[in-house]
């Protein structure tokens, strides 16, 4: 697959949709979304909040799996921890939800740093399973921990200002995308892409791969926590079984695969498809995961590069490309 990629690079130059035109399109898009947040119905706001939050997390999962080769099945760890932080700060200590949000994010980042001590000793499937085990262990622990209400979970006190939360979600999403863009175009991103494309070349770039991976993992932990905090402020109730649910990662995997793993804009496309499908399938409760699972398997079989990845290869363009490392 990598060979083919290089081949197509050689045959036809790739047009990169970036720079000023993309910036203008992006600003217009964000402006439209801001207007929608304020004028839209409460249902529109709910859907938009979900889009922004899932998009944030999917971009982060893509950063981990698609660009640094760390397939995590445990991003729900950060969602759950941040959700509980929000609930504890607001309900138990009577703080404002902004404080709860920031505390949740900080705990997420620190947790990522601590977990990296264990997780970075593993590779591939061991890494994947270990991240999941950690989330399950937290779920089991929280289910019997009195401070967080055991299996009954917690409620985030007060009525949320949903317009504000939705707006914060949008800001979070934009910051996440911009951050990933600059990260992948920095020396760190160059090193990571080099490692992904050609392990030998990576050492010659002279980038500390371990540190780069650590930075990505902590950033992913931080943003998944921030997204989780907002999600539970918006929805109000958190249970051990929902906060640390593998379902979170299921969604992220689905979004990234559908959109195109390892492409910059794939998760954005994937999120829109996912949320649309999710809203549509809500009518057929019970069937949604079956249909999502089938779609994911079919996409892996027949469109291994996802929707955006396939389009990009066919039409020779890239949206917000990161610089590629190649031997030529």
């Amino acid at each position, binding site marked *: 697959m990598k060979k083919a990629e290089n081949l197509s690079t050689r045959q036809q130059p790739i047009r990169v949709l970036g720079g000023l035109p993309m910036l203008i399109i992006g600003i217009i898009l964000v402006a439209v979304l801001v207007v929608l947040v304020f004028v839209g119905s409460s249902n529109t706001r709910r859907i938009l909040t979900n889009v922004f939050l899932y998009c944030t997390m999917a971009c982060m999962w893509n950063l981990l799996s698609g660009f640094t080769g760390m397939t995590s*099945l445990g991003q729900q760890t950060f969602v759950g921890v941040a959700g509980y932080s929000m609930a504890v700060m607001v309900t138990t200590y009577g703080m404002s939800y902004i404080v709860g949000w920031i505390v949740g994010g900080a705990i997420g980042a620190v947790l990522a740093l601590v977990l990296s001590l*264990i997780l970075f000793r593993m590779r591939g499937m061991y890494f*994947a399973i*270990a991240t999941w085990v950690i989330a*399950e262990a937290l779920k*089991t622990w929280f289910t019997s921990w009195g401070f967080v209400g055991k299996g009954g979970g917690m409620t985030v006190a007060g009525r949320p200002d949903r317009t504000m939360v939705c707006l914060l979600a949008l800001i979070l999403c934009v910051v996440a995308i911009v951050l990933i863009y600059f990260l992948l175009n920095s020396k760190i991103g160059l090193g990571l892409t080099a490692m992904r494309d050609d392990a030998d070349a990576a050492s010659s770039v002279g980038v500390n791969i371990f540190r780069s991976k650590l930075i990505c993992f902590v950033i992913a932990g931080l943003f998944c926590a921030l997204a989780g905090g907002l999600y539970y402020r918006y929805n109000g109730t958190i249970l051990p079984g929902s906060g640390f649910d*593998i379902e979170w990662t299921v969604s992220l995997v689905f979004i990234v*695969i559908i959109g195109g793993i390892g492409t910059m804009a794939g998760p954005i496309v994937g999120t829109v498809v996912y949320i649309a499908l999710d809203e549509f399938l809500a009518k057929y409760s019970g069937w949604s995961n079956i249909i999502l*699972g089938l779609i994911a398997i079919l996409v892996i*079989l027949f469109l291994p590069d996802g929707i955006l990845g396939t389009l990009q290869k066919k039409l020779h363009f890239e949206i917000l490309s990161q610089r590629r490392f190649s031997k030529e």
Partner: protein
Amino acid sequence: MLEVLQNIFTAQNAISGILLGGLFAVLGVGMTIIFGIVKLTNLAHGEFVILGAFCSTLISQALDIDPILTLIITIPLMFIIGMVLQSVLINRVMLQGSEPALLVTFGLSIILQDAMLLLFSADARKMNPSYAQSNISLPGGLYIPVLDLILLIISLVTILVLTLFLRRTYMGRAIRATSDDIVAASLMGVSIKKAYAVAMGIAMATAAVAGLCVGMRWTFYPSSGGEYLLRAFGVVVIGGMGSIPGALVGGLVFGLAQVFGGASYGLLASYVVLIIMLAVRPQGLFSK
């Protein structure tokens, strides 16, 4: 504090833990085969086990027979499902690399989980044969639960049969040869795809046995798969990939962790053991 510890680390608990070890070993053995031979992380193994549990429950109810006898039907049934699954789906995806294959098994697990929810409802299930409550008394006030003993015997017989198959038959040797060297195996006339399909079939057959054991020992739900997948994975990690004797030891460790952790912390204890193992010796205790 000491009293609490004395209450936990009793001889009776040790007996229970050892008896449960067989169950956990058979849970892990299917996973370890797929790991070692097909080199695939099968994230749907937990759902396969629960599927086996449902099949046994329904068949034993429908035919009004002892749950153990349902194995006559569930083992061949699951074997065929496994072979078909590997031949039509997983062999194809594996050509694209290990990560897509991992994600496909992940997709399978969520499909199966919701399919079982639709088919069998979210109710808790358990098989309760007449001997489920009886005990064999031992001197010193100790006892052996009959059910646990039967489950241990079923598990050990399964592992023995599997070991003999892998050691003594042409197909078994071909499967071992494939896990050692794919090219050399194909030079001996082994069809790699067929060897993989049979290996997956065997893994599914062990999942049928594990499902029966799980369904007789504990209540289960369509959503219980994840829990058993992680335990199966734990057994694999402790025992080493592809090692059947290793799976026995791994099963024992998890059986003891389950019992000493007690009702509320048994699962947590298992997870902690697994995380420590992953961090310290991810290649397993028994591999070089």
